């Protein structure tokens, strides 16, 4: 069809269309990547599940910020081992070592330290294993961190007995009173410093573990190799730990940093792409479909049908929309498809009114009369003769409406009226704003979601702008 080719070459002639198409390609590619890599129930399963994010650093800046800093910030570290690094017999029992090492190079203490074991397995009902945790510092000194004793099994379940398989055992060392006592004796033993448990807690266990002590009892980070070990004392040689992790809370994390709950913003923001695309395209598709359809029917059929559609459209078109949109989303919202429905419901009328007036002028064209004269049915005339007349305009409106839909959804999300089962950029901004990200200067929480909203909206605005000369013949370059 030559006019499609002509229209396209007209469209393609401007740079803004090319940029728009490029942006769209990226948008679609990222969305496809997200949908194929993240689970579809990412929202409920991970994002809105605080337990999942416990071991992530809270409000951490993105990792790449270190490039710009002279004083590097400590990265978040998670160490793990799943196989014993050594085994030794000991008084009829066995000792299994699980060692992980970490090279501390930055001039900071970790924010927190968490030990985690999962899948503890043992066979002797009367003699369950004991796990002791130690750390050996770069200066060769060793600190006992924690002891985990497992109770004997009194039930008549059959071995092997499995602990912490559903959920790992998590030991938060910061503020742990057992560790504090151990540190009191460590300080006294090694440095001859007497500090009570409350004193230790006040300084912070992380500082003592990762610190070398200065002259005036201040702690500076001790650079070098740390070895964390879990020591399993067991009665059966087959007893063991499935996985041992050490988490050292850092100040920077990942590509996009984390929020106040420790959620990895990168994953949340990534998930926002397909949602924005679905909202934008879905809403504009439905709105233009309904709006143009009713506009054509209203304009061509006329009479009572026209009166009815126009009264209805007029009413909706005559009210300030945002307040009602908010009210409706509050009442019905909370799910993506309901938000789409509300946005469509309030926005089809304006298109209907314009399409109707276009149809009225197209209806006056003689080729419509010619079609009547050769006996074409109403449906045929509407589909074959009227629709093509308004199609370019409707298509352009659809493109132009897409950013509106994206912006409207993010606004509703920002008001806390978004879909509660999946993260959207608006919701991330809402949570950030509610948690004072703006006042605390957490820029990495505010900047990217908004930028992505602008990006996806601007994509469609650019395409729409590129289409303007195609749709508005007055601006055409070719004649």
């Amino acid at each position, binding site marked *: 069809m030559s006019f499609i080719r002509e229209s396209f070459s007209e469209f393609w002639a401007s740079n*803004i269309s090319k940029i728009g198409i490029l942006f769209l390609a990226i948008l679609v590619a990222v969305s496809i990547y997200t949908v194929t890599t993240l689970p579809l129930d990412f929202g409920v399963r991970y994002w809105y599940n605080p337990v999942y994010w416990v071991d992530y650093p809270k409000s951490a800046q993105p990792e790449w910020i270190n490039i710009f800093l002279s004083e590097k910030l400590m990265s978040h570290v998670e160490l793990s081992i799943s196989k014993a690094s050594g085994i030794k017999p000991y008084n009829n029992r066995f000792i299994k070592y699980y060692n992980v090492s970490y090279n501390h190079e930055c001039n900071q203490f970790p924010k927190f330290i968490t030990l985690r074991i999962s899948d503890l397995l043992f066979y002797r009902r009367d003699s369950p294993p004991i796990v002791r945790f130690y750390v050996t510092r770069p200066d060769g000194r060793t600190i006992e961190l924690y002891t985990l004793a497992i109770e004997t099994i009194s039930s008549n379940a059959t071995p092997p007995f499995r602990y912490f398989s559903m959920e790992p055992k998590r030991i938060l060392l910061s503020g742990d009173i057992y560790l504090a006592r151990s540190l009191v004796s460590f300080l006294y033993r090694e440095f001859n410093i007497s500090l009570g448990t409350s004193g230790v807690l006040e300084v912070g266990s992380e500082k003592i573990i990762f610190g070398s002590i200065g002259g005036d009892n201040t702690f500076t980070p001790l650079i070098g190799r740390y070895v964390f070990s879990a020591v399993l004392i067991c009665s059966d040689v087959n007893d063991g730990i499935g996985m041992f992790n050490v988490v050292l809370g850092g100040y920077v994390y990942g590509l996009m940093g984390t929020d106040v709950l420790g959620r990895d913003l990168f994953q949340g923001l990534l998930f926002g792409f397909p949602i924005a695309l679905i909202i934008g395209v879905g809403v504009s598709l439905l709105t233009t479909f309904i709006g143009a359809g009713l506009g054509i029917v209203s304009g061509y059929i006329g009479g009572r049908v026209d009166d009815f559609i126009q009264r209805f459209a*007029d*009413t909706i078109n*005559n*009210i*300030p929309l*945002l*307040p*009602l949109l*908010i*009210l*409706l989303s*509050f*009442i*019905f919202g909370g799910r993506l498809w309901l938000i789409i429905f509300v946005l469509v419901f309030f926005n089809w009328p304006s298109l209907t009114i314009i399409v109707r007036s276009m149809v009225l002028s197209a209806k006056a064209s003689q080729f419509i009369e010619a079609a009547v004269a050769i006996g074409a049915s109403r449906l045929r005339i509407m589909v074959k003769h009227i629709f093509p007349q308004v199609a370019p305009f409707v298509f352009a409106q659809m493109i132009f409406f897409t*950013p509106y839909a994206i*912006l409207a959804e*993010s*606004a509703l999300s*920002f*008001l*806390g009226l978004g879909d509660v089962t999946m993260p959207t950029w608006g919701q991330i*901004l809402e949570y950030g*704003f509610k948690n004072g990200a*703006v*006042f*605390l*200067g957490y*820029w990495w929480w*505010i*900047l990217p*979601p*908004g930028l992505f*909203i*602008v990006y996806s*909206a*601007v994509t*469609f*605005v*650019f395409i729409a*702008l590129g289409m303007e000369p195609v749709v508005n013949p*007055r601006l055409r370059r070719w004649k």
Partner: protein
Amino acid sequence: MGLGKTLALKGLTLIVVLISVLLFTVLIIGASGLSDRVLSSIMNEELRGIRQKLTTQIRDPEELNRAMDEIKQDLVKAYGLDKPWYARIPNMILRIVTLDLGSAREVQTFTGSNRISDIILERIPNTILLMTSALIINFVLGLVIGPRIALRHGTKMDKAISLYSAISYALPTWWLGMLMILFFSFKLRIFPFGGMYSVPPSEDTFMRFLDLLWHVMLPLITLVLALSGSWIYITRSIVLSVAQEDFVSVARVKGLPEDLVRRRYIVRVAASPILTNVVLGLAGSIAGAILTEIVFDWPGMGTLYYKAVMSVDESLILALTYIFTLIYVLARFILEILYVVLDPRVRL
């Protein structure tokens, strides 16, 4: 048909719109069961309070229950919960239409009144101060820049401004507001984080005024940055379409100076569509930019409406919906009159 009749007809249509919107709002709140749920939860709250008081006076649990049942029945009637939700509608609408707006449940004025009319009267000036001045600035910018670039369309300047308009269309104002706070308030510390006055407010009237200016600056700049683009673009396209009319060439060939052609033959003809945008914009601005007001913690109509929705304060929601629509409808009516003044073609 006479002019009066035309206007009367338009007025009638707009009143129908007004009533339909109110009815629609009430129906939605009622039919979704929200109204009943909220009313009964308020009533139960009240009952709990009464029960606590009564337990100190009536010892016998059975007697207490009996007394409570009686009180409950009274309350059910008082709240209108004995009848279905739709039975409450006619009364509610009649009250609202006669501007008896009732009182809000939680929101209060600065002086502690919870009459809705007081609250609205306190809030409207705040919104006007921010939104309306932003609108006027944007309108003036549009009117100054729009025709200029329209008459030089295709130039670099035109392209740059079109690009700016495109991006600003895609820019959520409220997010821009957050960035502004982040940069100017958090980083540079030259503007306050939000609100209208410093706490505690200054005693001196002039200082208070300066304080107000200082507070209004950031939201105002935000609104202008985010919205002026569309204003310029709209003005540009209207002017562009008028500039291509034959009578403009005729005016040029008549030997009229270019600025006169522009003023009398382009802007003057483009005035009524531009004005439509302005008047509707003004009317819409009363509803406030809800999100921007929230971001800047600006005590205007937008934040008020948000609070009303979030606390399901039915009377407040209705009153605000009514006021917003009323203003909008009035603006439409004023527009009809303005069209007649501006465009002789409308006169029948």
